[in-house]
């Protein structure tokens, strides 16, 4: 089973996709239902439940926030 880390937070957790899929430039093709796990680098379950990415085409998005002091919009990091 293939796995790929998509986001690494500086709290020590990462979001990893497991299953049969291909990825290029944030575009993912799941050949079957894949599992998105929140875990430590050692594979220990993180704080978020595992979600299923169904077979099909996926595009990575992002969560952002505003910094009122800098006026910048940046990715949310947890």
């Amino acid at each position, binding site marked *: 089973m293939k796995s790929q880390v*998509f*986001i690494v937070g500086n709290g020590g957790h990462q979001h990893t996709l497991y299953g049969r899929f291909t990825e290029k430039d944030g575009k993912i093709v799941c050949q079957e239902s894949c599992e998105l796990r929140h875990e430590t680098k050692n594979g220990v379950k993180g704080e*978020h*439940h595992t*979600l299923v*990415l169904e077979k099909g085409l996926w595009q990575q998005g992002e969560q*952002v926030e505003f*910094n009122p002091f800098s006026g910048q919009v940046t*990715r949310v990091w*947890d």
Partner: protein
Amino acid sequence: MEIIINNVPFDYEMGLKICIAGSIQIEGLDINQEDTLTFKDIAMLSNIEQRRIAILHFGTERLLNEIEPVLVSKEILNKTTDCVIDGMLTTINYQDTYELYKVSGKKLFGEGKWNVRDEYYVKCRDTSTDREYIIWVDISSVLRANKKSEWKFKDGNETVDAIECIAWTIKTDVPTEEIEYIVRQGDCVFVKTKNEDYRKDMVRHISKEEYINLLKFES
């Protein structure tokens, strides 16, 4: 050097400020010093988990006294999500509460500043961990994402709500009509597309309508 508070690392200076504010005893750290932590220090932290911990020790009462946030909108959404628990696909029903607060620009940036606008943040509870977070939003951009007039808003003839603001935090380059649904796991977002060959939009913030209708699974 880092200081670890509630399992979250902070740089030494900020960590010390939080320890002093929250009377957190850490071996080798002198916390008997003047408490200089401000809400601005916390708001400047780039990490949402660090901000959560800092506010926890800063104290809600102190926060309210310092910046006097005003509740603008409170929205409760009943949600259903499927997730894998102990290897089993499980359906969970839950309520998410989103509160939108306005903070006076003068309170936030200082009374002496001019030409400052009021700023807004959403307080929300994490679905999985039951922790509370605050996320700042660019209110002008929120209005644009929901096709609302900023001029009318400034004149008091337009409103904004907490769902429009939390929706704004999700960005994608997939056009609305090409989105089958959206999945969000913490700060990790994936958009399921209907077709392989679609013309990408510019990266944009999603609207309240997209958030309510297309965000299908969350954790």
